[in-house]
């Protein structure tokens, strides 16, 4: 049974992938381990609940990965998405470590989907968890509990007391009651601050009120804040977050994957004033969808509407909510509370500017507009066949980049460059060291797993000597 009065060897803050990898590794190294998870049991697992795969290097096909995905290619992919905003030593170390994580994960009860060559395009680079991230999290909890890791849910660590590079104690709110917890070593794996709207407002102002948080509502960044306030070095740009355009009707938190909309390239997108503001057909959607969060965030009221006609309705993946449907543009505007005349004008201008070409969703085709700004450079077809449909869009925040600086042993670095003695970090709270910008599918889980294991082992070793 968990006992808050006991001094554990290792205290793990957080309950997602990185936290559990740390807890299991520390326990296997012989340490007594306490995991404090802010969420209740039903919502445990942080953003890992919403993940689906892990990007793994491999030099030959495995049972879950096809062909090969070598270190250099992995590194190049990372370099490309981050634009160089990364740390090569830590990044390469992470990449190399992913070559060994899959068997370890399987040993911890994680199950993978067999590689379905030709169906999942990522089966070469990414290993898919059977059932997704929540199934992975479940497996880790089962394993951790079997090994004797103590877990407390509904337990938020609100601050760490740090003196001379040593964590003395942790301030905890455990099921509503305050407590102070001591441990020989601490692993901070409590995620970013994207669910802390107040904090987002520091950089985004009132607009942040209209942001939707795609993942866990428990990523408040309290520990991150506490550490940065006590002389820990920061990594990653505090003003940046990964934002995509999602369905505006999504729940404020935890809407996850199903709120994504893929209709934009086949639509025109207008703002609250019924005006277009960006080239919807600039490139393939997966290459563009991550800029649309920002684009919508910059519009008045942080809202936009993607409008299609009946020709386009089946060209993209279904999403969680049905589109708003109307027999005419005027009626559609009414349902969206847009100015009907303005919307009709925008649609008519767009329709008149469309140059006919050969519509092809699989290439950057030659269907484009001529003479309007902004132009639509691909997949432009007139919006003229009723019924008409619209999806409202809002910025959906995936994660923030700000974190604590660490070294290759997952030790947290103080501003003087020296590592804190008994404080380690893993997961989103330190991902900014390696992923300073952009995103690479399955890389967050790679960082969390690799650094979770390192942090757990290092913390246990420290607790022992």
């Amino acid at each position, binding site marked *: 049974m968990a006992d808050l009065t006991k001094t554990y060897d290792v205290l793990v803050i957080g309950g997602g992938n990185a936290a559990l990898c740390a807890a299991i590794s520390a326990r296997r190294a012989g340490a007594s381990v306490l995991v404090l998870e802010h969420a209740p049991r039903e919502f445990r697992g942080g953003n890992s609940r919403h993940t689906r795969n892990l990007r793994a290097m491999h030099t030959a096909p495995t049972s879950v990965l096809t062909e090969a995905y070598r270190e250099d290619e992995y590194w190049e992919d990372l370099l490309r998405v981050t634009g160089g905003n990364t740390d090569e030593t830590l990044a390469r170390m992470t990449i190399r470590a992913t070559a060994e994580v899959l068997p370890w994960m399987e040993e911890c009860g994680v199950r993978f989907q067999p590689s379905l060559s030709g169906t999942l395009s990522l089966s*070469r680079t990414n290993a898919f968890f059977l059932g997704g991230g929540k199934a992975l999290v479940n497996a880790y909890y089962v394993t951790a509990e079997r090994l004797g890791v103590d877990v407390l849910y509904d337990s938020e660590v609100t601050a760490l007391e740090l003196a001379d590079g040593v964590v003395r104690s942790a301030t905890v709110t455990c099921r509503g009651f305050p407590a102070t917890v001591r441990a020989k070593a601490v692993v901070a794996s409590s995620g970013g601050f994207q669910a802390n709207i107040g904090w987002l407002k520091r950089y985004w102002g009132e607009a942040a009120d209209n942001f939707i948080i795609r993942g866990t509502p428990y990523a408040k960044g309290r520990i991150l804040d506490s550490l940065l306030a006590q002389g820990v070095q920061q990594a990653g740009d505090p003003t940046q977050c990964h934002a995509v355009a999602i369905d505006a009707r999504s729940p404020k938190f935890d809407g996850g994957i199903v709120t*994504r909309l893929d209709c934009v390239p086949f639509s025109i997108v207008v703002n609250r004033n019924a005006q277009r503001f960006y080239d919807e057909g600039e490139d393939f959607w997966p290459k563009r969808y991550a800029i649309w969060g920002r684009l919508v965030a910059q519009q008045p009221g942080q809202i936009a509407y993607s409008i299609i006609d009946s020709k386009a309705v089946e060209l993209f993946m279904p999403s969680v909510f049905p589109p708003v449907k109307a027999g005419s543009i005027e009626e559609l505007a009414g349902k969206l509370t847009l100015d009907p005349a303005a919307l009709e004008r925008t649609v008519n201008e767009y329709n008149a500017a469309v140059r006919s070409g050969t519509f092809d969703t699989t290439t950057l085709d030659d269907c484009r507009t001529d003479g309007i700004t902004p132009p639509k450079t691909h997949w432009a077809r007139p919006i003229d066949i009723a019924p008409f449909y619209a999806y409202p869009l809002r910025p959906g925040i995936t994660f923030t980049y700000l974190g604590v600086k660490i070294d290759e042993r997952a030790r947290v670095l103080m501003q003087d460059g020296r590592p804190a003695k008994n404080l380690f970090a893993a997961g989103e709270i330190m991902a900014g060291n390696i992923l300073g910008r952009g995103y690479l599918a399955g890389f967050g889980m790679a960082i969390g797993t690799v650094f979770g294991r390192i942090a757990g082992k290092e913390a246990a070793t420290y607790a022992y000597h």
Partner: protein
Amino acid sequence: MRTTEALEDARRALEICNACRYCEGFCAVFPAMEKRRAFSNGDLSYLANLCHNCRGCYHACQYAPPHEFGINLPKSFAELRVETYEEYAWPRPMARLLRRNGLVVSIVTALALAGVLLGAMLLQAPDLLYGTHTGPGAFYAVVPHSVMVALGSVTFLFVLFALGMGFANFWRDTGGRAAELTRGRPLRQALSDVLTLRHLGGQHGCNDRDETFSTARRRFHHALFYGFFACFASTGVATLYHVLFGWEAPYGLFSLPVLLGTFGGLGIAVGTAGMLWLKLTGDQVPTAKRLMGTEVAFLALLALTAVSGLLLLALRSTGAMGIALAVHLGFVLSLFLLMPYSKFVHGVYRAAALLRYALEREPAPTPAPVAVPAAAEPPIDIVRLARARSAEENTQPLGRSTPNPAAGD
């Protein structure tokens, strides 16, 4: 399939699943779902019966209750499934009867039948009933062979016909055609899926009781399933012995009918006990609580049939044989009579759904231009569409199911 609350609930859930697809590795339901963009009532009936209730997708679901989306597929499907049983039952009103008071109805039926048998015997010759009978024809001294054969074959033919009507109703409603039923490979695939229960946990096992994986449920079902057919075979062999060779029951302890019956009976007893144990000790959230009655009724009826049979074997050379025989026959007859209206039909519809699935996976070489019934939406291959460029390229896919390096999957 008519539109009901359970059906609408399943539709809403599947629309979310279809936007998510994280569970596509669990079972046949998800690949079948991905072939569709909209779900007709018939589609939903098909998918509900394709579900093996393994609960994998419930425990893995980030939208499971208390999340506001409240996705709970095993529960939604279970609730829809019983409605489909009612929908396809022949004659239909009988099904409703059993849904309400399954347990009471089954036991009362069994006891009533046993009572009628006993009454008839007592009227005939009370001393026969309590007497000790051994040797060939001993059973028939109590219940005349002709009565047994008449009761058995009438019941059996009726059941076969009713189940067949149910199958036909299901097949039609889910958009099937008669011509499809003759295609060999899908038939073989479906048969193998039935015999192995491949989708009940696949290679990993299922979430029988909580989020840990186990194969207990599948093993118990196998015990039950093969036990049931062993008992069936036992009766068949005995009939052949009687008709072909004139050998009359009871047979020796090591004769084929007795061996089959004993193992079958034990299999059913173990299987039902295990299933009941899992049912009572498992996580209740992914179950449809209001169906507990029907399910327990079926388990109990099976268990009592098996146990009464084993008891008959134990008591067959004593004076209690007559009563034991009457009770056992009562349960057997009741099990069969109620079969088309009890949970037994799950076997028929699940097998049919597996066949439908096997057919879908392997479209006929030259699809005949037959009009698709209104119930079935023509499947749109959005998967193919979404994955069109997928094989090597992972930078420019179209749909969500081709996640990509730049994407937040």
